[in-house]
């Protein structure tokens, strides 16, 4: 059961091959057996999951099932879930039980899905390796010595390991696409504003976007159909109709114009990754697409601009963690200043503090124009690069990451870690959608092909990704988990 895609599971459930309860019990047992090694979950909500599965089975029996009835999935621990611990991977919120549900959590529940729990993540979504979690690093199911990527590393690892068929992630600079690539699954970052941010704990508000992580593009299409849509509680959510993302999955690709950004195939790209990506592009050519080189001239300014904008927004977004109304509070504060300083020193991990400090510094008097305003101007140039490219081609393709998953503990220097996100970060600055699909292996670790489209081109991206998955079987490969082989 655990190797099936959502689409296959939905068919099996509706054919009565097994019940949602049986499926849920099976997956809970797998989590029990394997997650000790992977550490992909922070909280497993077995009891609620079984109750939701029973409710879905009962609804199905009554003929009242929603669009994704009884299908299990997992939520990155960044989404508020009523009555369930919502930690955001931080000691600061280790004791926080959310009193309300995030917009997407409501939508998934209304669709009939069954949440198995909350997945591990880099603290406050800051990281590219999942080593920044208060709850310990997540291991890559393909190689327990490798990182799963971050920040949605728990979601990616859980899906790759067959603990859950799909999971929700968030992507601020690559946090869905890069872990999807590292773990050999499919992950979609929608257009900024496509999915509500209400109840999704903010890292960098103008960049954060939630999206699906699953075993196939088709599964992502079904999930996005549920997740997308206007939410009156999020001012940045877009009032725009939600198309049927599954409707055009099978559209042929003949005539598709693919652009390969020159800057995405330069220094620092591992030859194995480049080889896999170029092979994938050949598959597209065989499907009738034409390929040309394009330029995104401001690519190399994306990381510098991001590391001004994201930490600035984060430094402000994270000021609410002050030990007064919720979350961690230090013992016996001597006075108010002591309460603030000790609570925040104890509650936040190192990477979070680093970004708060950077953001505070760049916003402070005398630096605002040189850093923040400058970065916003560069942001416009970066967006324009993409808009210009999409005048010429339908989609852009390239690697999701310059290397496959690296070893745990391999990147000690923050800047070298940041540079990992060279191919994903500009997409968030521009607000466009991007998807990572499995496209082979390099030294036994998965490689992700990243496909980019213009604003609100999700249906096109999913179609392009799905056609690749009809022609290849990279997305069907599964890691052999330790206990199963033993």
């Amino acid at each position, binding site marked *: 059961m655990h190797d099936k895609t959502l689409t296959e599971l939905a068919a099996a459930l509706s054919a009565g091959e097994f019940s949602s309860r049986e499926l849920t019990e099976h997956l809970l047992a797998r989590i029990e057996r394997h997650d000790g090694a992977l550490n992909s979950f922070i909280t497993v909500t077995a009891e609620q999951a079984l109750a939701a599965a029973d409710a879905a089975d009962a609804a199905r029996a009554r003929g009242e099932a929603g669009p994704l009835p009884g299908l299990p999935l997992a939520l990155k621990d960044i989404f508020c879930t009523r009555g369930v611990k919502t930690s955001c991977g931080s000691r600061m919120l280790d004791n926080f039980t959310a009193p309300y549900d995030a917009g997407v959590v409501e939508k998934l529940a209304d669709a009939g899905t069954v949440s198995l729990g909350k997945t591990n993540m880099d603290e406050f979504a800051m990281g590219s390796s999942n080593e920044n979690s208060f709850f310990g690093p997540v291991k890559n199911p393909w190689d327990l010595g490798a990182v799963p990527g971050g920040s949605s590393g728990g979601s990616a690892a859980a899906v790759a390991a067959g603990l859950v068929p799909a999971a929700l992630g968030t992507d601020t600079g690559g946090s869905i696409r890069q872990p999807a690539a590292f773990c050999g699954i499919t992950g979609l970052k929608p257009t900024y*504003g496509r999915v509500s941010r209400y109840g999704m704990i903010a890292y960098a508000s103008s960049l954060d976007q939630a999206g699906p992580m699953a075993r196939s593009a088709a599964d992502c299409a079904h999930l996005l159909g549920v997740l997308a849509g206007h939410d*009156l509680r999020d001012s940045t959510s877009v009032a725009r109709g939600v198309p049927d993302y599954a409707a055009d999955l099978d559209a042929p690709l003949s005539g598709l114009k693919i652009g390969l950004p020159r800057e995405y195939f330069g220094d620092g790209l591992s030859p194995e990754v480049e080889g896999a990506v170029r092979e994938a592009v050949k598959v597209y050519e065989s499907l009738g697409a034409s390929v040309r080189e394009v330029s995104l001239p401001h690519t190399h300014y994306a990381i510098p601009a991001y590391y001004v904008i994201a930490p600035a927004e984060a430094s402000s977004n994270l000021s609410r963690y002050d030990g007064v109304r919720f979350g961690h509070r230090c013992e016996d504060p001597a006075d108010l200043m002591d309460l603030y300083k000790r609570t925040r020193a104890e509650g936040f991990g190192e990477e979070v503090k680093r970004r708060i400090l950077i953001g*505070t510094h760049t916003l402070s008097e005398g630096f605002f124009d040189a850093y923040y305003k*400058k970065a916003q101007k560069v942001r416009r*140039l970066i967006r324009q690069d993409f808009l210009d490219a999409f005048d010429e081609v339908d989609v852009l393709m390239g690697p999701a990451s310059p290397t496959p998953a690296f070893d745990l503990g391999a990147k000690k220097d*923050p800047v070298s870690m940041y540079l990992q996100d060279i191919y994903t970060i500009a997409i968030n600055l521009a607000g466009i959608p991007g998807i990572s699909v499995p496209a082979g292996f390099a030294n036994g670790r998965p490689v992700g092909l990243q496909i980019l489209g213009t604003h609100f081109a999700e249906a096109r991206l999913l179609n392009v990704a799905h056609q690749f998955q009809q022609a290849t079987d990279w997305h069907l490969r599964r890691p052999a988990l330790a206990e199963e082989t033993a």
Partner: protein
Amino acid sequence: MALEHADVLRAAHLARLGLDEGEADRYLGDLGRILEMVDQLQALDTDGVAPLAHPLDATQRLRADEVTEADQRETFQRCAPAVENGLYLVPRVVE
């Protein structure tokens, strides 16, 4: 724009992050390298470019002036570290 020890301490104070001297030294190194990377921006000519705050050129939608929220004090204060008589407690604030 070189970063100095005092800048780190000042940012830590503004952000209400307790740092000891050793930590401040460590962050000085990290932050210095991050800012050096960020300083690449200065090389780019952005004259006449308008700052971009949001990736979509959208405008603010307005909400009708209606009271939609009921009292949930008890629920909300269940996750509070210190409350009394419905108030959140903090060390005495001197005005």
